[in-house]
């Protein structure tokens, strides 16, 4: 073997060692091997696309549709995702008041008011998306202030915040949400508030633990030696280096928030009719199950289950991919 080749090999190795994969490149590499997590990621992307389109175009679209040009295009609306007006009542499509089964023009069938189940399922994505994002954003903001502060300062602040978190964890979650909702009253905005405000404890606990494990590291000491203040140290040095478990909790939290909204709407205390929400559609369908209306239960359920599965499996994959203990 000539000297040049050996040198090359040594150089390559040095290059490998000198440029380790960044945290996210490494995470992505490991995530790619987890097929279930990738399926989850795919579902999340579809969900985000559908939800965003519905969110942005819903109002404008149906406003135009309900004006004069409706007749011009017939019942088929051009362009957007939902083929029919989700709230359009059409008694011709529900001859005996129990809806009609899936057909070519209504692939998911119609409900007891003759409304198109496919359109309603698609439009409901909007509410799921809003709940997932807004509720988790509220919980995350509260948690990421209280958790790191209590972990960093310790002492009395820490004890008080963590005892309050213990009390929040003592309630079975869905019941706590129910209790809050029963005081706030049913409705869309209150769902965000209830789920968001009750979710802080999870994020606070996780970020506190992370801060505790990072705060005595040398680079934090170095920052302090350079004269950085507490706020700067917490949010600039400590937090960014301890976020991986928080991201996992966010993914799981969005799935959980969507499931909770569905449960609340199913119980009649969340999104109110005639708005379309998966949980509410399920609640509306079950009274007609004995009449054999499986389609009306099945399709919103599938959308709900697939979305929640997407977030949970992706969150799980992310946890495995960022867990240093599982590194080979």
């Amino acid at each position, binding site marked *: 073997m000539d000297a040049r080749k050996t040198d090359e090999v040594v150089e390559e190795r040095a290059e490998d060692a000198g440029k380790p994969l960044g945290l996210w490149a490494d995470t992505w590499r490991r995530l790619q091997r987890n097929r279930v997590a990738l399926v989850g990621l795919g579902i999340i992307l579809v969900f985000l696309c559908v939800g965003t389109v519905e969110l942005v175009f819903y109002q404008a679209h149906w406003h135009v549709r309900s004006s004069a040009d409706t007749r011009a295009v017939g019942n088929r609306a051009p362009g957007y995702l939902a083929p029919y007006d989700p709230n359009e009542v059409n008694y011709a499509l529900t001859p005996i008041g129990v809806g009609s089964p899936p057909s070519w023009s209504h692939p998911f069938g119609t409900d007891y008011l003759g409304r198109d189940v496919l359109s309603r399922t698609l439009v409901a994505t909007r509410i799921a998306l809003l709940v997932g994002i807004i509720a988790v954003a509220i919980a995350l903001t509260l948690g990421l202030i209280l958790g790191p502060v209590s972990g960093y300062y310790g002492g009395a602040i820490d004890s008080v915040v963590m005892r309050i978190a*213990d009390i929040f964890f*003592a309630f079975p979650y869905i019941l706590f949400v129910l209790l809050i909702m029963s005081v706030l009253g049913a409705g869309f905005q209150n769902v965000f508030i209830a789920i968001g405000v009750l979710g802080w404890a999870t994020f606070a606990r996780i970020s506190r633990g992370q801060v505790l494990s990072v705060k005595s590291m040398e680079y934090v000491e170095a920052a302090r030696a350079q004269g950085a203040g507490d706020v700067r140290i917490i949010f600039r040095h400590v937090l960014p280096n301890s976020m991986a478990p928080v991201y996992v909790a966010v993914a799981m939290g969005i799935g959980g928030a969507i499931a909770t909204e569905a449960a609340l709407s199913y119980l009649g205390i969340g999104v109110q009719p005639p708005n379309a929400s998966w949980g509410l559609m399920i609640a509306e369908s079950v009274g007609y199950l004995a009449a054999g209306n499986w389609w009306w239960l099945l399709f919103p359920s599938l959308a709900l289950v697939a979305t929640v599965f997407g977030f949970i499996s992706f969150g799980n994959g992310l946890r495995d991919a960022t867990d240093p203990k599982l590194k080979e």
Partner: protein
Amino acid sequence: MTSYIIRRLFQLVIVLLGVTLITFTMLKLVPGDPARALAGKNATPQRIEYVRHERGLDRPFYVQYYKYLVALAHGDMGESLYTGRDVSEMVREAAPVTIQLAVAAVLIELLGIPLGVYSALRQYSFWDTTLTTGALILWGIPVFVLGYFAMYIFGLKLNWLPIGGVGDSVLWIIPSSWESFTYLILPALTLGLLGVAYISYMQRAAMLEVIRSDYIRTARAKGLSERKVIWGHGFKNAVIPVMTIAGIDLGALIGGAIITETVFNRPGIGLMIYHAIGARDVAVIAAGVLFATFFFVFANLLVDLGYAWVDPRVRLGD
């Protein structure tokens, strides 16, 4: 151990005080004037003020909270603002129905332990992938969705099992006959299956971590049989954290039981809360939530004490 128990009981008192403080605050936050509601429709202002004074509703918040605690300690949860019924009595009637369902679901949930161990021992095999994916899918299914599908298929289409109601029981929660047992099957399976998914997933992870550890390698190196290594050394250590997780998951299970009852029309705490939601009867909702929370908190205490008893690191640490 004694000092651990004392510490844990002290914690329990704080948590229970906090929980009751929150439910009491919720009761106070309900819009509307309770004195007016209690005094009746055509009450004069004097009458309303009299009721307010008589019920202590004009006293400071902390006095009212204290009286609420004293009443709770005597098993008095007030009365329904809507039907006027004694709430404690409603809870007493409904509780066994819910506890029966929760206990049955926990028993089913424990099946997740052998499934998880099996998965871990054959990591990446066909069955492992199937079980893990199945667990993740089940984990994401809301309990009412699974419940209605089970009801549609086994109750309405196949007509094998009753679609709702509850059978007679003896000794509080044990079904008295096969027929009353059949009422329990669908709800318990619905609720239990979701738990099986979660527990088997956690058990798999715990087992995988344990069988990669050094002491397992040592056990193998000193020539122990594979069975002794896995069950005598591995499983014993992998099952303990899962018991704690199962204890925490009990909160989700109780919440699930509450919702399952609305699906299968079981007259337990859940159905009681559901009917109260319609009437916005917060006194009843709060009582149901409080009952479920106390149940959850005490069950967790038992799990933690059991954990500390089995694993000395817990009681000697922190």
